[in-house]
């Protein structure tokens, strides 16, 4: 087992990883930018290293700074969290070269699944249902037109090197196609350094369903059930839940088995999430694989009782998964609200000093957060300040617990998305689980969805 793990991240997830390490008796190293000097993850790690100025590119995204910090502290493993360098095959390779264990899949698997077009091909080969689309990048407008005639409309143009909803354009008819392909290629080149785009059928108002997967280095791969993340705005998830009210047991078993087979086919190890769209007629379409821990992992932890971060560490240390598929049970229902430091109506970021902070406890409540009274939310990083997760015997109890928890949460000094979350939780369609990725449109100040960039999920 590792002696010391360096956490290449910040905020709530850095604390989450520190929690697992503490429980396992593993020493921790926090890295921080100058803006995070007083952050809780620095305070609660055994050692800390300042790795750069506030700007992420010079700190949390700096491979040399992170590796150097591991070297001077003698860390034998690095956990990359989510975001930042968590899906960087380059960091994983440098770790290998420096004899530091990267807690995640192998670099070549990260690379394969990080390339959206290659991932689609690999999944198609493994028998995973994929959205009809071009089998690789389209070489320009003429080929795009040819492919589009076969695929049908509406379709979506996606950047091969994109992700998180960026570099996507919806096209509803043939006339709009050539100029959108041209613009998309130019934008992709500018944003991601690679102008390659591919085409996919576009599903109207799908549900976003994702399957949590874990694999070890002894040939065991399991799935930990699905999460539904349909409540999202511009590809940013707001509320996630497990299980999905839209899946039957039969569908769950079938999709889970398909995903496990696909994970095996690409020799997947450690944690990962396979994302799908579910259309109105019950068809699943593969979207992408996130080769890392996800923000919303706590809802899965609640309904399975499994500590995903501990499993990640165990797998990376060469141990077997602590459960077999047959031992995994799904009980109850869990919800997660991502509390952001932003205006609940306009979504403008709201950094600043938190003057009062209080969250209630009680049965079935978990709060993953790094903020506290008197802490300053800086403008340099994302706006997530707390994840409030509730568990109940069924979906209604989980909702009731979430409502009372948010109503009794006090965060003063900055604006938060809590009022918006409460609106969602009180919405009849949400309560009836009549949700899909268009659900949030009713709360958006501009009802301009589908104008060229809005697409299905992140």
């Amino acid at each position, binding site marked *: 087992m590792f002696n010391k793990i360096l956490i290449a991240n910040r905020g709530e997830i850095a604390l989450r990883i520190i929690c697992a390490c503490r429980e396992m008796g593993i020493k921790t190293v926090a890295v921080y930018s100058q803006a995070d000097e007083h952050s809780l993850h620095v305070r609660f790690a055994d050692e800390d290293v*300042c790795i*750069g100025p506030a700007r992420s590119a010079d*700190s949390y995204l700096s491979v040399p*700074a992170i590796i150097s910090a591991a*070297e*001077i502290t003698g860390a034998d493993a690095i956990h990359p969290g989510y975001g930042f360098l968590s899906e960087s095959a380059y960091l994983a390779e440098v770790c290998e070269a420096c004899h530091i264990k990267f807690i995640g899949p192998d670099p070549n698997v990260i690379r394969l699944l990080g390339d959206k077009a290659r991932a689609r091909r690999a999944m198609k080969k493994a028998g995973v249902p994929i959205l009809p689309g071009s089998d690789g990048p389209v070489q320009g407008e003429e080929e795009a037109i040819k492919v589009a005639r076969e695929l049908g409309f509406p379709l979506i143009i996606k950047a091969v090197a994109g992700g998180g909803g960026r570099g996507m354009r919806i096209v509803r008819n043939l006339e709009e196609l050539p100029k959108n392909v041209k613009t998309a290629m130019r934008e992709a080149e500018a944003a991601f350094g690679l102008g390659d785009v591919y085409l996919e059928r576009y599903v109207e108002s799908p549900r976003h369903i994702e399957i949590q997967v874990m694999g070890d280095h002894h040939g065991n791969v399991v799935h930990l059930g699905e999460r539904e993340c349909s409540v999202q705005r511009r590809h940013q998830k707001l509320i996630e839940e497990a299980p999905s009210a839209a899946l039957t047991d039969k569908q769950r078993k079938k999709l889970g088995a398909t995903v496990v087979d696909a994970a095996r086919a690409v020799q997947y190890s450690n944690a990962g999430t396979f994302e799908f769209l579910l259309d109105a007629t019950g068809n699943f379409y593969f979207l992408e694989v996130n080769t890392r821990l996800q923000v919303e992992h706590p809802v899965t932890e609640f309904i399975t009782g499994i500590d995903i971060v501990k499993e990640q560490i165990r797998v990376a240390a060469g141990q077997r998964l602590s459960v077999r598929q047959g031992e995994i049970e799904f009980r109850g229902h869990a919800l997660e609200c991502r509390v952001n430091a932003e205006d609940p109506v306009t979504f403008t970021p709201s950094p600043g000093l938190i003057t009062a902070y209080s969250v209630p406890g009680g049965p079935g409540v978990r709060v993953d957060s790094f903020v506290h009274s008197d802490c300053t939310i800086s403008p340099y990083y994302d706006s997530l300040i707390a994840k409030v997760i509730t568990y109940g015997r069924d979906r209604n109890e989980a909702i009731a617990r979430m409502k009372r928890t948010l109503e009794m949460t006090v965060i003063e000094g900055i604006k938060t998305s809590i009022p918006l979350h409460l609106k969602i939780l009180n919405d009849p369609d949400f309560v009836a689980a009549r949700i899909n990725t268009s659900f949030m449109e009713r709360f958006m100040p501009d009802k301009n969805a589908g104008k060229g960039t809005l697409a299905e999920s992140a």
Partner: protein
Amino acid sequence: MNLDALKDILNLVREHELAEFEMEHDGLKVRIRKAGRESVVTQAAPVAAPAPVAAVAALASVAPAAAAPPLPVDAGVPLAVIKAPIVGTLYRSAEPGSTPFVDVGSVVKKGEVLCIIEAMKLMNEIECECDGEIAAAYVDNGQPVQFGDRLFAVKVS
């Protein structure tokens, strides 16, 4: 910027309970940040000062109820603090056992190598930002350094 002006700034910071204050004036940058209940004053002289500026040396923390921060003996001499631009292990000489690049008292020129910071098996030479004389060396040979750690203080000439 003289001592009275600095005192005024510190008082303003305390009075208005500012968490952080930064200012640039006549080529001199002053940054004051409250760590808990203390006010920490740090100052870096400009990289290429056109004319000598009356300044205060880098200071330690100030007690909450105290008056102005203590002054070094030779107030009025600009001090440049060279900080680590990367994370790594610091070496004071080119090879183990050879003489250090510089020591307290060494006269240095802008661009001169002061030390090496090793990161990921690469030796990075850290250069002096100004002409002057080494007034202090804060890190011993072979010690790890973080981003922003003080390495040397240079009396700017």
